[in-house]
């Protein structure tokens, strides 16, 4: 077997294998249709708590679709139809009685392209806590903003210009601002949809470091096109192909000893 990726960090995390004892997210037979297109077929997977799970696969394989099922962002697409079952802490998130706004407060999301609101840096982070009423006073809100920016590793760079527009930051800073905005509402899960695809390598490294730190407190799912990135930051990896979850396991296993031929071909760069 030809190995082009050698993930030393993943190897060092073999101890994390037992995190699947109490899965945070349980998906069973999830199917997604966009109109006539069957985008996701019978996906069943468990995702461990306070760990990083990477979704890899070629473009159009359904990994982003599945990610968007977890905070029900697919609801905003009128033609999308989701069937199956997704449980977060044993609660069915597609239960009609569940409030989707509550769900999205528990499941934060960071998008592919940095998308700060065209408002001040402070307002960007404060918006979530404000609409959820998380802060009782102005000082409390400032405290939340301060803490979130600090955890996103952005505080030192922006502390003197919180009133400046968020869109005036560099791409990497904008993405960290978006992460700060996501963690400001204290979610349990953070979904990241190719968060580094629009960033340069240095900004990417900062984000990856940050993901590694955030793992302490949050369950993170990251969709990525970069296998190196998956290897660097994740403990478990799921490989999607043509709407099917081909294989899921520890990152180490997936990268060194995949059971499926397709996984091996993709990882070694034979297609995709």
């Amino acid at each position: 077997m030809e190995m082009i990726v050698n993930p030393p960090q993943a190897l060092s995390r073999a101890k994390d294998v037992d995190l699947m004892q109490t899965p945070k997210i349980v998906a069973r037979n999830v199917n997604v249709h966009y109109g006539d297109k069957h985008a996701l077929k019978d996906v069943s997977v468990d995702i461990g708590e306070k760990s990083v799970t990477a979704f890899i696969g070629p473009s159009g394989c359904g990994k982003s679709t599945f990610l968007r099922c977890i905070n029900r962002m697919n609801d905003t697409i009128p033609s999308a139809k989701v069937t199956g079952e997704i449980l977060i802490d044993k609660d069915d998130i597609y239960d009609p009685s569940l409030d989707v706004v509550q769900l999205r407060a528990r499941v934060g999301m960071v998008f592919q392209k940095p998308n700060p609101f065209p408002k001040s840096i402070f307002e960007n982070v404060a918006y979530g806590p404000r609409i959820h009423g998380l802060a009782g006073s102005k000082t409390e809100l400032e405290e939340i903003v301060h803490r979130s920016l600090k955890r996103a590793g952005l505080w030192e760079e922006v502390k003197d210009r919180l009133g400046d527009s968020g869109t005036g930051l560099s791409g990497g800073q904008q993405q960290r601002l978006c992460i700060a905005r996501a963690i400001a509402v204290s979610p349990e899960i953070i979904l990241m949809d190719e968060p580094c695809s629009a960033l340069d390598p240095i900004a990417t490294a900062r984000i990856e470091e940050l993901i590694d730190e955030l793992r302490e407190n949050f369950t993170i799912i990251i969709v990525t096109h970069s296998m190196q990135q998956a290897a660097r930051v994740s403990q478990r990896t799921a490989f999607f192909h043509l709407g099917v979850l081909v294989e899921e396991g520890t990152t180490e296993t997936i990268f060194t000893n995949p059971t499926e031929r397709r996984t091996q071909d993709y990882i070694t760069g034979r297609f995709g």
Partner: protein
Amino acid sequence: MTKAIIGSPETRLRDAVKRRIAARYRAEFRFRLYGMIAIALTALFLLIVLVDILLKGLPAFTVHQFRFDVPVVLADIDPAKAKDPEVLRGADYQALVRDALRSHFPEVKDRVGRRRLDGLISSGASDTLRHQVVADPSLVGKTLSIAALVSADAELYFKGTGTAIDRKPGASTISVSGQEGPVTLSTSGSDFSEWAKAYRQRYAKLGEKLDAEVPSLLVALNGGLVKVNEISAGNISGEVLLPLKSAGDAQAGAWQLVTYLTPESNRRVKDREVAWLEALRAKGIVERSFNWRFFTSGDSREAELAGIRGALVGSALTLLVTLLICLPLGVAAAIYLEEFAPKNRATELIEVNINNLAAVPSIVFGLLGLAVFLNFFGLPRSAPLVGGLVLALLVLPTIIIASRAALKAVPPSIKEAALGVGASHQQAVFHHVLPLAMPGILTGTIIGMAHALGETAPLLMIGMVAFIVAPATSVTDAATVLPVQIYLWSDLPEIGFQAKTAAAIIVLLIFLFVMNGAAIYLRKKFERRW
């Protein structure tokens, strides 16, 4: 050798390519040329229109007035009665102004002459005097310096549409038989025969008697003016228009041959009036000033008194009603259709029909307004309320389409970001999408309002085409709007209204330019790149 090179296949290919490139450059040059010609033609036509309107309209922004010292001695009011404002208001101030004018021409005693003299001042000339005196009754008995508006004909004369005047000093001694009435003139030289010779070439019918079909000849001598009626061999007879200070001789150079070049029958201001107006001008009584009255008075049958205030107030009230209805309705409809409406056949039908409505001729909306608002709901005719409602129908599609485009232009990532932190759909729209779309919505609204400001046809249908003197004070008063006022004035036969029409067009254009400028400014100022 040369032949071999030319004939080689590669060379031929290269030549063919060169020719094609040359042809391509020529085609591109031609296309650019056509473009430039099109732009130049458009600019030329635009320039012609603007220059024409400006030339016609700008004179209407100035006005001529006679500066008189008027003693406020009201015949029917003694100072004791002057306390009563009703009496003061009803007094005949026009007579005071008339008397002031007559005092400059005491020789005019005949009825026809007096009436012609009175015709030089506007029927509204005493308005300011009346206001002054009513406001301050203590002025009764004092002498006031007032500016009396000249009549429409006199106004046109001062603006140069009367006649050109040619003055030539007399070369010989002239003597005159009297100071007033019909007189005979005699001269030692050939001034008159030379004059007759010069004009006989141009006017074949110029005989011994000078009539209204040929240029008028006058003689200015001894401080007065004589109009020549007949030039025969030994006899030059005429009539005194302005009395002479003395009869007797005037030396060469001390008198003038004056010619009013436009024949009397071709102008509204006759020789006698020209003489009076020129005399007043020479005395320094004629003042030229900015025509504030054009903006402060309502419509009038007298051209010199007519103003656009009524139309401006009517337009403002109508647009206010339109805006109040259009902006909330249009924006709400756009937000619902763009963000919340289920995408099904019914919404599609509504969308298609909104686009169709934007293309419906405006007169149809006028008919609709007539049938629904006037006949069915019984709202008052000619009122800004109904005009505003009709224009709101007209502008709504424009605003909805512009607002939807503005909402659509906000990148979905902003909405997703808001949804991602747990905002509800409505919060995402109202907190993030709508504020970002607002500049676009406002731009569309302003352009829609500018469209409504210039709209005439539907307002004709609901009766806003009335002759309204007093500006409307509420949205249910009868009123007219600026474009309808232009339409009304353009229809009037009096020459004085031509300049008023053009001036009102200038005002309308300025408003449209300002509104469109505001739209462009908003767009530039709040433009965002993502």
